[in-house]
C-alpha cells in the first residue's frame, strides 16, 4: 500500500478515535450533568407536596381531613402603585397595611403575603385583577368537628424548612405515616412555556400519606366531651379528663380533656394546652388504686374477701404520721369487701403491710404501674416507682390507698381494665387500622401486655366493685337496673413535699356491664370546688355517661 494511503487512513482512524473519545466523555462521563442542564432548559420542575393522610373515626367520618388553602404571594417588581395595592390587598387579606407595604417594598421577585388563605379570599383578589399577585395551592388540615378529640389528634405545625409536620397526639406519633413522601415532576415545555405532550419524568419516591382509622366512636366522643365540659363547669373544677376503653381489646373508644382547643387555630395558643394530660401527666390516684392493690393481695393469697381487718377500729400512727379514713369513721372487724365498699384507708394499710414492699413493687409492676402502656400517642410518660431502698414503712402504708405513688390516667385505666378482662391486661390502642393511599386496609390487632391476676381473682374483685357501686358512697348516683363495677377516688395533691389541704383530685373508675364489660372508664376532675369528693362529683358524671353509652350500645338493664 502506498504510504499516502496509509497516512490518510491513520489520520482518519485517529480522528475517529478522537471523536469516539469525545462522545464517550459527553455521553457517558458527563451524561448526568448534561441531563440536568437540558431539563433546566426545556423542563419545568414542579415540587409535589404529598396529601397528608386523613384521620377517620370508626363511623368513617374524617375528623381530620384536608382542605384547599392558598399562599398569596407578590412580585414587587411588577407592581407599580405599591401604596394603592397595599391598601386594597390589606383589606381583603385582613392584614395591616404596613405589613403588606413593607413586603412590597422589598427588592425581590417573590414575597409571601398570606399563608392559608381560603378560596373566597383567592376569588376576591382575582377579581381585582392586580398584576404581580399570585397564588400557590396547598393543603391544610380541616377539622370539621372543631375541637373534638383535639388532645388525641395533636396539631400539624411547620418544621424548620416551613414544611408540614405533626406534633403531639396522633399527628406526632404517626407523622411519617401520615405525611407521605415528597416528590417532583419535570414538565417538558416549549419556548413560550406551553407544555409539550411527552413522557413526564416523575420521581418514583413520591407517596401520599396513609390514613388512620381510629377506634374512636364519634357519638360517644361527642357526648363524653359535652358531659365533661358540663361537669367541670358545674363542680367548679380547674380541668377534667375522661378516658373510655374497651377492656377486651384495649381500643380507646373516647378520650377527652377540658379545657380543649381547636387544632386549626394552634398558632394563636400556648404550647402547654396541646399536651394530652391523659397520657402525659402523672397524678396520685388515691382510692381508685385500691382495687388494684386488693386484687394483688387476693392473687398473692395474703388475704381473702372474708379476712377481718384487726386494725380498722381507729386511726393508725406510723412513725410521725397519723393515717385516718376519708370521713373519720372506723369500722371494727371490717372484712376486705367492707374495706373497698367504704374505701377504708386503714384497711388498705393492713392489706399493704400483709403484702410487704417486695410483693407490692413486683405486683404493681405486673399491672404496668411505673411502665409505659405503649399507647400510640406522642408524649406518653411513665412516672417510675420508688427504688426498693427508698420505701419506708409509711410509703408502703400510703401506697395501699393510692397516695405516694404516681400514675398516668391511661396507666391506671389500662391496669384497671385487666380486672374487667378476666385478668388480662391489653395495650391501649387509638388507631384500629391504617389505610394506604391505594386503599389497602391493614388492621392493627389487639395486643396483650400481660396477665397480672387470674380469672378467678378478677371475678371476685368484680363482685366487690359491684357491691362498692351499690352500697358505697356513690350509690346515690348509680344507674339502677345495671350491674356496674366501680370505685370512687379522692386524692390529695402533693405540693412541695406536703399535701395541699384545700384541694383534691376527684375521680371515678369503673366498667359496665360488670358481667360482660363493653367499656371501662376513668373520670377525673382536677380541684373541684363545689364538692371535693369523687363520690359527689366524678361519680355522677361517670354514671350519666354510662347510661348514654349503654343506651348507644343497646344494652338493656339486667336487673
Amino acid at each position: 500500500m502506498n504510504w499516502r494511503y496509509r497516512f490518510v487512513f491513520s489520520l482518519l482512524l485517529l480522528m475517529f478515535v478522537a471523536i469516539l473519545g469525545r462522545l464517550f466523555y459527553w455521553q457517558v462521563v458527563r451524561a448526568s450533568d448534561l441531563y440536568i442542564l437540558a431539563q433546566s432548559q426545556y423542563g419545568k420542575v414542579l415540587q409535589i407536596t404529598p396529601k397528608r393522610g386523613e384521620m377517620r373515626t370508626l363511623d368513617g367520618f374524617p375528623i381530620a381531613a384536608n382542605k384547599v388553602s392558598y399562599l398569596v404571594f407578590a412580585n414587587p417588581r411588577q407592581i407599580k402603585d405599591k401604596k394603592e395595592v397595599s391598601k386594597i390587598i390589606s383589606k381583603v387579606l385582613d392584614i395591616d397595611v404596613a405589613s403588606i407595604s413593607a413586603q412590597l417594598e422589598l427588592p425581590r421577585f417573590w414575597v409571601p403575603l398570606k399563608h392559608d388563605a381560603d378560596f373566597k379570599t383567592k376569588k376576591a383578589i382575582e377579581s381585582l385583577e392586580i398584576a404581580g399577585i399570585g397564588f400557590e395551592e396547598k393543603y391544610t388540615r380541616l377539622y370539621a368537628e372543631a375541637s373534638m378529640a383535639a388532645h388525641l389528634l395533636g396539631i400539624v405545625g411547620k418544621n424548620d424548612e416551613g414544611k408540614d409536620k405533626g406534633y403531639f397526639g396522633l399527628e406526632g406519633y404517626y407523622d411519617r405515616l401520615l405525611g407521605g413522601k415528597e416528590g417532583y415532576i419535570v414538565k417538558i415545555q416549549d419556548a413560550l412555556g406551553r407544555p409539550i405532550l411527552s413522557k413526564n419524568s416523575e420521581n418514583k419516591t413520591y407517596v401520599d400519606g396513609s390514613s388512620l382509622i381510629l377506634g374512636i366512636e364519634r357519638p360517644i366522643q361527642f357526648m363524653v366531651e359535652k358531659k365533661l365540659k358540663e361537669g367541670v363547669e358545674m363542680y367548679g373544677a380547674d380541668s377534667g379528663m375522661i378516658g373510655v376503653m374497651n377492656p377486651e381489646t384495649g381500643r380507646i373508644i373516647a378520650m377527652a380533656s377540658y379545657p380543649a382547643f381547636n387544632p386549626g387555630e394552634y398558632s394563636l395558643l400556648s404550647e402547654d394546652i396541646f399536651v394530652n394530660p391523659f397520657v402525659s401527666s402523672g397524678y396520685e390516684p388515691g382510692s381508685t388504686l385500691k382495687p388494684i392493690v386488693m386484687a394483688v393481695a387476693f392473687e398473692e393469697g395474703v388475704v381473702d374477701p372474708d379476712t377481718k381487718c384487726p386494725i380498722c377500729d381507729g386511726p393508725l400512727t406510723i412513725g410521725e404520721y397519723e393515717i385516718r379514713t376519708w370521713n373519720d369513721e372506723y369500722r371494727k372487724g371490717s372484712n376486705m369487701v367492707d374495706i373497698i365498699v367504704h374505701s377504708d384507708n386503714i384497711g388498705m394499710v393492713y392489706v399493704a403491710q400483709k403484702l410487704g414492699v417486695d410483693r407490692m413493687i413486683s405486683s404493681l409492676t405486673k399491672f404496668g404501674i411505673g411502665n409505659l402502656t405503649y399507647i400510640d400517642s406522642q408524649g406518653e410518660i411513665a412516672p417510675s416507682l420508688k427504688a426498693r431502698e427508698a420505701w419506708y414503712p409509711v410509703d408502703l402504708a400510703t401506697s395501699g390507698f393510692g397516695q405516694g405513688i404516681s400514675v398516668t390516667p391511661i396507666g391506671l385505666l389500662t391496669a384497671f381494665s385487666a380486672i374487667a378482662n378476666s385478668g388480662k391486661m391489653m395495650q391501649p390502642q387509638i388507631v384500629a387500622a391504617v389505610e394506604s393511599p391505594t386503599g389497602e386496609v391493614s388492621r392493627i390487632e389487639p395486643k396483650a401486655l400481660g396477665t397480672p391476676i387470674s380469672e378467678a381473682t378478677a371475678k371476685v374483685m368484680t363482685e366487690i366493685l359491684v357491691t362498692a357501686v351499690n352500697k358505697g358512697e356513690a350509690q346515690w348516683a348509680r344507674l339502677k337496673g345495671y350491674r356496674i363495677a366501680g370505685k370512687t377516688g379522692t386524692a390529695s395533691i402533693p405540693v412541695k413535699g406536703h399535701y395541699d389541704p384545700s384541694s383534691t383530685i376527684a375521680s371515678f373508675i369503673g366498667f359496665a356491664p360488670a358481667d360482660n364489660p363493653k367499656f371501662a372508664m376513668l373520670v377525673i376532675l382536677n380541684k373541684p370546688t363545689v364538692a371535693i369528693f369523687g363520690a359527689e362529683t366524678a361519680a355522677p358524671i361517670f354514671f350519666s355517661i354510662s347510661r348514654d353509652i349503654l343506651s348507644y350500645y343497646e344494652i338493656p338493664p339486667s336487673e
Partner: protein
Amino acid sequence: MKKSILIISLPVIAIIFLAVAQTVLSNVLSTSGVEVSKISSEIEFYKTENLLLKEKLYRQESLENVASRASELGFVKSKHQLIISPTRTVLTRILSEIK
C-alpha cells in the same frame, strides 16, 4: 439497471415518507401542548371544586352542626328511656304458649 434503480429509490422513498410523517406528527404534538394545558387546568379546577364541596359536606355532617341545628329546631334530649324486655312482648308470650 432497473433493479439497481429500484434498490436505491426504495430507501429514498421510505426516508422521504418517514420525514414527512415525523414532520406532521411533530406539528400535531407541538400544538397539542395548549390542549394539554387546558385539560390540566380543568382537572385542577374540578379537583379544587371537589375538595371545596367535601369541606362543605363534612361541616354539614359534623355532630357539632347537627346538635346546634337540632337545638335551633327545638329538639330536646329524652329524659326517659323505654326499654322493651324481649321476655315481656306479646309475640314472645304467644310463641311460648304455642310451644
